[in-house]
């Protein structure tokens, strides 16, 4: 892992997604003495994915390993934030957040509201999720919808290395609690120029990954790659998709999506989470609620409503890949 310590000078560095996360953490630890960074295996070992390597060495005891105690990790983050620190904590897999979900929903999200802003809880929770070959049902879920039903909590999901950097820096700077959901399959990937040290962004906004006229496709996280691959293929067939990656899911860019869907007259949402109760429903409901006239009924694609099996052949039969996305979109637009 290259030394990302020059983050403060605005310049572009060739970094993977994981290295971009590291660079963002380094910048935050460097610029904000009130930050703390902790979680399981993140300090001395540098993280199970190597993402936090070198930070303990360089920032000392503001960076530390913890027991396997997610309630203690998240709860202590709430308390440290109430008392003026700015903790950045890692929950190794989003699935594990469920052993301590109380601390997110009943504690963290209430701090500012109940105290009318007298107390705040600027906690950043980094986690990662998603399906990867061979992972079992307890290590494969995409759970963003659970967090998106919790008012008081900001949520983002970077897909590019640049966003892995920018969103995390924005999250740490935010005075609200923010959940940053990364994707472990991306850590070693996406090596490319990442601009470091730029201005700190404000939570919100989306990325227009592709402009198009036949349909608006809203997506986020690792599915973005599949959607873009599908869109590229469909373009050759003369189907022009507008691909919007909603890197921030709370706050959600409703207006921009409504505008795009109004222009294209068709809306699809593609995510890796189970379809029923997924955040795709919210996107469809918002657009429908605005009365956007659509040529075809809105389409939702995601993991069908099952658990996630371990065998690659089984998951492949469930989670739509680029071809399946393209096929579904093609069929949908032809009806």
């Amino acid at each position, binding site marked *: 892992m290259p030394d990302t310590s020059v983050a403060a000078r605005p310049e572009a560095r060739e970094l993977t997604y994981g290295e971009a996360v590291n660079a963002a953490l380094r910048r935050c630890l460097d610029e904000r003495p*009130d930050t*703390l960074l902790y979680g399981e295996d993140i300090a001395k070992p540098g993280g199970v994915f190597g993402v936090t390597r070198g930070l303990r060495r360089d920032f000392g005891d*503001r960076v*530390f390993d*913890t*027991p396997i*105690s*997610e*309630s*203690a990790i*998240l*709860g*202590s*983050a*709430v*308390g*440290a*934030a*109430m*008392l*003026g*620190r700015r*903790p950045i904590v890692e929950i190794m897999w989003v699935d594990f957040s469920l*052993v*301590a979900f*109380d*601390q997110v929903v*009943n*504690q963290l999200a*209430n701090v*500012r*509201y*109940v*105290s*009318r*802003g*007298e*107390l*705040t809880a600027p906690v950043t929770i980094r986690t990662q999720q998603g399906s990867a070959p061979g992972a079992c049902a307890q290590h494969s879920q995409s759970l963003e919808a659970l967090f998106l039903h919790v*008012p*008081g909590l*900001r949520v983002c999901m970077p897909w590019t290395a640049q966003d892995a950097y920018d969103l995390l820096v924005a999250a740490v700077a*935010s*005075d*609200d609690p923010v959940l940053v959901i990364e994707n472990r399959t991306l850590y070693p990937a996406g090596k490319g120029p990442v601009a470091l040290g730029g201005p700190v962004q404000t939570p919100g906004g989306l990325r227009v990954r592709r402009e198009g006229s036949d349909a608006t496709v809203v997506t986020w996280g690792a599915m973005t790659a599949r959607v873009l691959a599908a869109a590229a293929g469909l373009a050759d067939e003369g189907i022009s998709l507008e691909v919007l990656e909603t890197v921030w899911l709370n706050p959600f860019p409703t207006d921009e999506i409504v505008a795009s869907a109004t222009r294209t007259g068709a809306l699809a949402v593609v995510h890796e989470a189970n379809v029923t109760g997924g955040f795709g429903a919210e996107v469809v409901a918002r657009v429908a609620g605005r009365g956007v006239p659509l040529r075809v009924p809105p389409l939702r694609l995601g993991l069908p409503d099952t658990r996630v099996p371990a065998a690659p052949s089984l998951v492949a039969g469930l989670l739509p890949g680029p071809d399946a996305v393209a096929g579904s979109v093609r069929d949908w637009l032809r009806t």
Partner: protein
Amino acid sequence: MDGSQPLADLRQVWRMRAFEERVRELRLAGDAVGSIHLGIGQEGVAVGASCLIGPDDAVFATYRGHSWAIACGVEPEKLFAEILGRATGINGGRGGSAHLTAPGYRFFGENSIVGAGAPIACGAALAGRHDGTDRVALTVFGDGAMNQGAVHEAMNFAAAFSLPVVFLCENNSWSELTAIDEMVGEPQLWRRAAGYGMPGERIDGNDPEQVRDRLGDAFEVAREGGGPTLVEAMTQRLVGHYIGDADQYRRPGERERDAENEPVALLTRRLRDAGVPDDEIAGTERAAREEMDAASAVALAAPPADPATAKEHLYA
């Protein structure tokens, strides 16, 4: 022993008790609504602890936390108003009886999720390690909370990192309507401390003097970098779990024992033994009731929380 300290203690016990008895009246009259949990009978613990809480310290209590808010110095008027859902409440009506928060008073709040305050307190202690204070975080919870995973995680977390946390278990023998001794294999709850590698002890929570002394040791150890302690303070609630609880699960002899042990009885005996005149003793109650009558009257006169503000302060 000279009577001035027990007299001051009794005065404080009475302030807490008069406050809560007034709350009970307000609840029964319908001025306050919802579940309200009184700590009547348990005041000795908060009274004994109050002088230990330093300016940078942080207290985390439960839904049964009125007395702890008072111990931290929150004005009863603001607490009454909060419980009554008034705009002038310490949280503008958002917290209510069970989720009071007063950070300006070192009271980082009640918590209505059993055990959830313990890990949060660890964070307050952790913050102190980095902000240059000598903060001790005090987390108060019940006997039943000892069986909650979060409390376990907090105790180990604090012990592993030698955090300045004082774990104070108010053992009132009951978790809601269930006896703690039927819900554990070892009813001496303080004995769990050793497994975490921290000191633990059981004390008489009805005696503010003993609380001050023994909990004081725990504060001192924590403040000087010696890490956490678990203190099990034996006490009793003289009332139901919440206002309205028919409270019919008590064991034979329990009420009599409780009446004898509770802090007003204990301190009154002690004051009499020290030769303090009955009138002076009775004066503590009188003064407290007057204070709480006045404070609650002010709160009652305040307007209800304004619905137009209900959506504010969700985000920065």
